């Protein structure tokens, strides 16, 4: 009834078709990438935006950890902070609003050779993308998620965000917000994230330390990074900036990062709260679980070509 002919059976493999290949350099011959080599478009952020600092520290991380261009994988959703991938020289994806995590998960699971960094804002992470935050955490998909939390919708010019404090006056809450804000750290712990940290863009060394620890974590690593919106919510984080009279309270060394309840309690400390690693646990990643399922199945079909594996199924359907 149908024709067995299909037009493109002899297509070459996907990827860089018809492109000029070059001889690869040995990694040992390569020097760490400088900021000049890793920066791409000039950021579209407002002067003074906290996100500049996060970007600069990402460059520093790349340099320090000797990440090569081709291995830099930066994914974002929609929002001011989500413009991130355009500013980084490397493989980048600017996906739809709220869905950066599932997109990045697709990359992470199918490409275990890459470490995926996801950048986004509080609206992207906790409002439109709230469901994905929960499930990426519980599945423990290996990637690093940095949420640049400014407690306001900046790109759409000052509406209430899921982390806006009670009483915050925005264009959508002229009389002050009445919806209880989300506590991102508690949310992450409750969802089953295996690495939960909090930092502030105004404490650069701390940001870098958290990013490095997150990158080294085998699992879903989440960093809430306070990052001020100077345009719509100026001074939001002054309470955490020492030179503005605030306090940057790092989590005490005695805190047991494997104690979920202690972490949860610590996340409830009054504003400006604590900074550092709240929780860190070793739990098999989705990536490892899938790899194990694959290894178990592959063992049973050892030495067989793909078509032979399929042939076995078809033989049963005769």
């Amino acid at each position: 009834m149908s024709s067995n002919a299909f037009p493109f059976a002899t297509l070459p493999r996907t990827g860089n078709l018809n492109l000029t290949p070059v001889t690869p350099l040995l990694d040992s011959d390569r020097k760490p990438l400088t900021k000049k080599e890793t920066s791409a478009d000039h950021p579209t952020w407002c002067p003074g935006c906290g996100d500049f600092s996060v970007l600069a520290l990402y460059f520093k991380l790349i340099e320090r950890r000797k990440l090569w261009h081709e291995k830099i994988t930066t994914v974002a959703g929609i929002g001011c902070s989500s413009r991130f991938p355009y500013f980084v020289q490397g493989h980048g994806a600017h996906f739809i609003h709220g869905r950066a995590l599932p997109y990045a998960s697709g990359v992470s699971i199918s490409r275990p050779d890459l470490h995926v960094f996801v950048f986004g804002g509080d609206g992207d992470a906790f409002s439109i993308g709230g469901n994905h935050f929960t499930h990426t955490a519980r599945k423990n998909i290996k990637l690093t998620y940095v949420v640049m939390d400014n407690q306001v919708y900046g790109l759409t010019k000052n509406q209430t965000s899921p982390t806006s404090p009670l009483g915050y006056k925005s264009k959508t809450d002229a009389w002050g917000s009445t919806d209880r804000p989300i506590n991102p750290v508690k949310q992450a712990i409750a969802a089953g994230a295996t690495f939960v940290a909090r930092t502030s863009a105004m404490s650069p060394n701390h940001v870098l330390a958290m990013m490095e620890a997150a990158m080294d974590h085998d699992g879903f690593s989440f960093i809430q990074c306070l990052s001020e919106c100077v345009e719509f919510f100026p001074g939001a984080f002054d309470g955490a900036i020492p030179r503005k009279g605030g306090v940057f309270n790092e989590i005490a060394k005695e805190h047991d990062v494997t104690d979920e309840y202690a972490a949860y309690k610590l996340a409830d400390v009054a504003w400006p709260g604590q900074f550092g690693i709240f929780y860190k646990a070793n739990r098999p990643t989705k990536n490892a679980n899938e790899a194990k399922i694959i290894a178990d199945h592959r063992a049973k079909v050892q030495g067989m070509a793909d078509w032979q594996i399929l042939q076995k199924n078809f033989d049963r359907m005769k």
Partner: protein
Amino acid sequence: MSAAAEAPAQPGGQSRVTKINEATIRIAGNSQDGIQAIGGFLARLAGRSEQEVMTFMTIPSTISGGPSIFQVRVGSGEVLSAGDEADMLLCFYQHSYEDHIKSLKLGGIVLYDADHVTPRPEWQENYRHVGVNISSLTVEAIGGTGRDKGKNIYSLGLLAKIYDLDVAKLKKLFSERFGGKDASVLNNANACFDAGYNHSLENLLKSYQFYAGADKGGHQVVMNGNEALAYGLIAAGVRFGAGYPITPWSDIMELLRKELPKYGGSFIQCEDEIASVSMAIGASWGGRVAVTGSSGPGISLKSEAIGWASMAEMPLIVVDVQRGGPSTGMPTNVEQSDLNIATFGGHGDSPRVVIAPSGVEDCFYTAIEAVNIARKYSTPVIILSDQGIATRIEAFPEPKLEQVCQDISPDFTPVADHKPYDLNAPDGVTRHIAPGTRVASGKYPVVTGLEHDEMGHPTGSPKVHLSMIAKRRNKLRRLAWELPTPKTYGPDEGHILLVGWGSSEGPIREAVDRARAVGDAISAINLKHINPLPNGLEKIFKGFHHVFVVELNDEGLYGYGQLASVLRARFTDPKIQGINKVDGLTWKVKEILDRARALASTK
């Protein structure tokens, strides 16, 4: 037994044997009675006997229980539909008997479970009634455990006797199906079957025998459309998928979840439809075309992300197993009402490819074609299957897997420089490099949903927007040039041309055969490529006075179904009219013919 020919009675034989070309058997019961198993065994047996077969089933959308039917049509010649009217109704309950007797042709046989069914006197004259105490005899056959589980196999024994089926082949199927289980399962199956087979059907004087099927030159495989589609994706080289359960798509994701790890791949069950399409797109960007899929409402949820894939020009396979809509609609019924959302379901101008397989075998090859179009044109491709194809079983020649299976592993060879959205590319098509690919110039591209320049960086330039919109549109025009013009089924000139797509192809062809047999000048074409349409259709339309688009969707506000509207917009030809229905069932041949003749007489 439409093409029945009375054969001379066997010399010395007690019963008369009638040679037949085909038989349509409807089995009616409740959803836990295992009636699908009877149909499945019959279909598989037909596949092994060089016969053609097609099945049709309805299942209740409730969690457990409820009336359910399975219709199987077996033929020694070509079988194009699951049959308008049944030759035999096997019914287990009073409601099965009363609800389905009208699906039986006059003079057909009602084989009923006398433990549960009381025949109605007014139907005795028109239908041959044969009562067997199926439930109690089943219980007796398996040693009186008090349960009638196995009555499906007992009934299969009765059918095997009536239709002189190959018992050795059936028993081999049992041993394959039940062999892996506890030995008592196979023993019980054989005991039930034997009891049914040996039951004396004294009041049924005739038995039947199929003519031998033509040698198909090789083996046939028997499966349903969802299986064929899933295996086609595997053959095409797809190794990653993501999805969310929804009927009738779930079978495909379950199969891929189970099978892909053997090939080093994964299928991820996601938190929702949006996450699944997003995850598949991420994996596609990772270097190898990935799949997601859904039915009904799930497709609506994926629309935004599919638009991103159109904008970023990312290869992606989206399977849409259509069901009755809108909204939650009729989850276990068939409809072809997603053509519009598949083709136009995005905000902005977001061209994508839409292909509709027309049968079970076609599902297998369409999956491969879809993957290769997605790769070649760097575009999302939507495979529009439907519940009718998804759940029906057909036998088809076994594909030559060694030749068909493809390796589409990503290629990470470093490149000197790379502009994915090159406006001067000779073929006008986007090529992505997967993460992990080194670019010697140190300039890396970005993929995005914003309008972008050739490197993927955002731009608000109207000039670039114009060029990029044209680029995304023109590559699909280029694809249209490559698509074969559909072949006319029947002569190229005549009175009526029936245009169908998807699961309607079979019944439409049978309608053409039937019409031609009585001298009506009716031909048909099937449109597999919905978007873009193949070129050359206007030439075909020219040969006919009427062009009727037969589809399972509503006639809409302006009187035309979804494909008919597209064809009218494309060809502005007033002779294009629609024949539509949305009763949740596949086309009956008679419905198509009656409607086509009536419409032609009024125009």
